């Protein structure tokens, strides 16, 4: 991993035109195929939502392509670079388990920079810049357990952004928050995307937020997982809570729901066939 220069962080967002190529992705759990020779090509700089039936391996997918879980076979290249050579960040579903409770919020946010070997002064400057950029008003001298759920997940997201990652993985990041906080956090993550144009790969179990935030929604089948459909979402940004009732949004969402229901139905009929 290389240390990004501060200029790159505070200056204009760098144009990203590369491709993310996933070739022959294969993974088994307990003898069952989750992914078998799965191929996908994504454009960098896009916001991709992943949605699919329960247990189809949505989270496994981003765990595999982010290198958190090793794959059995396959290659993933980010703009031609391997996982190890790409700056990736990951936001976990359970912020309580992912933040370091022994560090104050500010320590958590700058920890990735510490790993990269950056000195303390530069680390603090980077945090300052980040806070100013997103207008965050959280008392960062508190410990994570002293913050609300939304604040904790905000700290997680800031921790992921501090390295200015090329790709940001979000694994159901709002599922532990109440609806009001979820709406607020959706706007916040949009704000991140519109300012930074990092590639964001977002796993969700909520179709509404999957459609609201994405350039494209990747709909998956039951396992062994295949692509059911890759649905483009052409709704103008920014997409506030008002756009949730716009006709375009409703159209895209109901189309996705149709595909989703078809996939769920197809497999349950398969299963009942096996049963009889």
């Amino acid at each position: 991993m290389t240390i990004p220069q501060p200029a790159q962080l505070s200056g204009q967002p760098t144009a990203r035109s590369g491709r993310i190529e996933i070739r022959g992705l294969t993974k088994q759990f307990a003898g069952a195929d989750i992914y078998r020779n799965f191929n996908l090509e994504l454009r960098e700089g896009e916001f991709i939502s992943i949605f699919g039936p329960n247990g189809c391996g949505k989270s496994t997918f981003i765990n595999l392509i982010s290198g958190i879980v090793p794959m059995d076979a396959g290659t993933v290249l980010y703009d031609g670079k391997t996982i190890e050579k790409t700056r990736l960040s990951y936001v976990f579903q359970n912020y309580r388990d992912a933040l370091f409770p022994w560090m104050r919020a500010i320590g958590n946010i700058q920890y990735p920079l510490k790993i990269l070997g950056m000195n303390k002064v530069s680390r603090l400057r980077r945090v300052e810049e980040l806070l100013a950029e997103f207008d965050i008003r959280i008392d960062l001298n508190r410990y994570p357990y002293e913050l609300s759920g939304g604040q904790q997940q905000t700290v997680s997201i800031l921790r992921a952004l501090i390295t200015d990652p090329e790709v940001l993985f979000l694994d159901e990041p709002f599922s532990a928050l109440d609806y009001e906080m979820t709406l607020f956090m959706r706007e916040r993550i949009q704000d991140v995307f519109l300012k930074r144009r990092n590639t964001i790969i977002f796993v969700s179990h909520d179709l509404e937020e999957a459609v609201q935030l994405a350039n494209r929604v990747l709909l998956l089948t039951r396992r062994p997982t295949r692509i059911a459909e890759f649905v483009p979402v052409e709704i103008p940004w920014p997409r506030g809570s008002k756009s949730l009732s716009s006709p375009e949004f409703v159209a895209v969402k109901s189309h996705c729901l149709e595909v989703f229901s078809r996939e769920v139905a197809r497999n349950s009929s398969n299963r009942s066939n096996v049963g009889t």
Partner: protein
Amino acid sequence: MVQLSVTRAAKDGEQASETARATSSMPLDLPPDTLPPPRSSQLRRVAQVAIGPVVLLLLWYVAGELGLLNPRLIPPPGATLTETWKALTEGTMFYDLVQTLNRVLVAFAIAAALGVPIGIVIGANERIYRSIEFIIDFFRSTPATAMFPLFMLIFGLGDQGKIALAAFSALLIIVFNVAYGVLNARKTRILAARSMGAGRARIFADVIFLETLPQTFVGLRAGISLALVVIVVAEMFIGGMDGLGHRIADDQMSYNIKDMYGSLLLSGALGYSLNYAFLLIEKYFVHWAGR
């Protein structure tokens, strides 16, 4: 405590008002549930805690007065406590207490210094853990007292033998708890650190060690309690001229019954204080536990 110092400050005037400001601003930095409770409920808590011992002393006294107790076996509380106070301030009881405490602390220090790193290494390698789990469990279940003769043979009758045995017993408990903590550490934080590019050594120092700290403290607390037990018993039976265990055995043989009760009370107070001290240390260092 904060409130007490505020009232005192108010009386002392000028310079004190600064203290008042400093102390009154202090709770703002603390999470709400660590704020000191109102004074009246604090007093009530102290009273509640005191009721048990006071009633016990009262029963002891009344039973003695009524002639229900054989004074040769259970002397009255007043005389016992006076005798103990005298032995502490004028006699050698305080010296015995210090000797025992020293041995416990040395044994515990050895056990902790070896046990925590060993526990981490064992816990981090599941295969090593599985292969020595039985050995640790076996020796942990073996009564420490049964190993007196062996340790006397190896380390002699002096302090070394007592300390070695206490350290060995505490070591097993500490290793077991630390290894268990590492083995069951939540994986998300480790994954998080790994996803940031942290290497193995850094993950150990920055994540696993701290993640395991609550369980480590469970082991340390159990370890120091066991070290005290082993040291006191060793002082009774393995040669030596001092320590609370030696004093209690001596009192029994010379029929110095009041001194024996005093030494017993003191041993209890020592064990209680060690445990309590560890709880305080734990609360300070592992402030996040259970949250």
